[in-house]
């Protein structure tokens, strides 16, 4: 039980994928201009990430490892991810055109959201079992969504601030992300090892 809690605390706070591990930055900056969009993206990513880390676990455990072809891991995982994303995209497109428009080019970009592949690979590296893999994926996504939503709310405020012209847009957003990651250093040491 504690172990699972630690996985969550670690992925969400201490080793936050975006602010500490530098994974998933592009959607973090790209889809954080509006709070509503960020919430949608957070949900989509959480769904995709959890699902794909489960699927990659299965593929690794029941296909790659038995056949001794671990060196195909990256390709197999990325394929799994791409399919999960494409599938999600089609479903969203059909069921919620608005969400689809809003997530726009970012749904396909979830594929290349390094966090997704990162989670799959890190799961293997850390020898996670099924539940751990799922939790790790979920935690990573929850951490991603948490900072994404807070970042979006901050950006809405910064958008209407009197920011010097050269800094408007991505520049001040990156600086804000930097200060956020500075604040997240406060969590370091919470989970040792």
């Amino acid at each position, binding site marked *: 039980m504690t172990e699972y809690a630690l996985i969550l605390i670690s992925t969400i706070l201490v080793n936050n994928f975006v602010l500490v591990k530098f994974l998933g930055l592009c959607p973090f900056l790209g889809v954080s201009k509006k709070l509503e969009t960020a919430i949608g993206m957070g949900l989509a990513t959480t769904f995709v990430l959890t699902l794909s880390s489960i699927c990659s676990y299965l593929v690794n455990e029941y296909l790659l490892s038995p056949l001794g072809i671990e060196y195909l891991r990256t390709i197999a995982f990325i394929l799994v991810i791409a399919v999960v994303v494409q599938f999600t995209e089609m479903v969203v497109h059909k069921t919620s055109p608005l969400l689809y428009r809003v997530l726009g080019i970012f749904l396909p970009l979830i594929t290349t959201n390094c966090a997704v592949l990162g989670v799959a690979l890190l799961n293997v590296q850390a020898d996670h079992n099924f539940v751990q893999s799922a939790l790790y994926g979920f935690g990573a996504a929850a951490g991603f969504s948490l900072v994404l939503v807070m970042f979006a709310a901050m950006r*809405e*405020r910064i*958008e*209407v601030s*009197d920011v010097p012209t050269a800094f408007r847009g991505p520049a001040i957003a990156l600086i804000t992300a930097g200060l956020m990651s500075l604040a997240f250093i406060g969590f370091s040491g919470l989970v040792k090892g």
Partner: protein
Amino acid sequence: MEVAVTQNGKRRFAMKLWSFHGGVELPGHKQESTIRPVEPAPLPKRLILPLSQHLGAPAEPVVAVGDKVLKGQIIARPGGFVSAPLHASSSGTVVAIDEHAVPHPSGLSAPCITIETDGRDLWVEREQQTDYRQLEPADIRETIRQAGIVGLGGAGFPAFIKLNPGKTIKTLILNGAECEPYITCDDMLMREQADEILRGLLIIRRAVQAQHCLIAIEDNKPEAAHSLQKALQRIESDADNIEIVMIPARYPAGGEKQLIKVVTGQEVPSGGLPVQIGVVCHNVATAAAVYRAVEHGEPLLSRIVTITGGAVAEPRNLEALIGTPVMELLSACRTNFNVLQEVIMGGPMMGIALANHKVPLIKTGNCLLTVSHGEMEQHPAVQPCIRCGNCADACPVSLLPQQMYWHARAKDFDKIQEYDLFDCIECGCCAYVCPSNIPLVHYYRFAKSEIRSQQEQKRKADIARERHERREQRLAREKAERATRHARKKPGTTDENKRAAIQAAVERAKAGKQGAPSDDV
């Protein structure tokens, strides 16, 4: 909170009062103008009567330049259902129907009828009214409508509409709060014409069939309350279920929704009207005007206006004809024009700064507040908002003024509406307490007018789109028809003609399906 309530002049029971969030305590500045009794203002040489002194469609003139008019004669008829007629406030000659400066924040001109008075103040023939008790509610409303009575409490909403509730009215409230500083016209009216107010109340009560009547007065006007109590005793027989309630003086207790909350504990739903919760609220002056219209056949020709402020040597209340130029009213109270910096029509919290000194008094003009040099801290340097939240604490509607300000600043009109901009009553409490001197209300007005204009543009765009689509369809149809005609001329139908014919048929079917009007041009 509980306060003592008087009924029939006797302390009867304690009545529960509620309170509203926020609000501010303001220095009253009311004594200055209550020393002298109300006096009639001198008859001006010219009366300028704007066609739009009320909410709704402007009135339409029924006189022409050169016409002689008598006092009380209709000179403009209502321009729609939500509108009010206009009457000549004195006898004389119509000398102009044109654009003239009016009291409006824009400082722009608007259509007005100008009458040169003849000094004789001759009345038109008045219909002598019977006892209101014999009148049907519908007749009362019609009389009020014909009298051009609009709400005298501020918004100028045509009074007869409010008296047409179509719902059972539990509570009829007369608003004698007069919560704005400086203004005392309602106070003086209640002191001096309590009987008229009560009679007006009885008439309105009959019109709306109200079960219960309240007269709400802020507790800083004991004389007014006393005078009304006396009057209440005088109408003993009719005084059932009429109560005078003293409410704590806290701006904006006089705001309709706030007042209803204070005396009934109920909240008028956002975007809704008091009638929805069985309440009708009128200003005390409106009641007095109703009385005069119903019992004396007098339309709304004059009102009591407070003339006060630092530049006025003799602050007081005058009974002035609608249309009197404000300069004449100021002169009548010996205003020192050398120190005069600004004139505000209305109170300091909600009034309009007059941009032009030629404007006339209008039906909703309850006060002329002069500002002398250095009297009020005028427009101090604006500083950035520090989100201190003072404004939110002061807002009687529980809005978040600072958030609305940030979005108005950024012209993010969608976001600002998420913060319920249109629930803002523009009371000014937020701006009053802002440590950074931000003209918050100005921002909300800016945003509201932009949004309204965008909606208007959207409406126009929709019409244009529809007309454009209809035209496109028509052109397509005409082309198709031409093609068929062409085809019929050449019997040896080529493939091309066949295709055109099919095309035309398809077009026709499409046009038909989309319900395009058969043939318009």
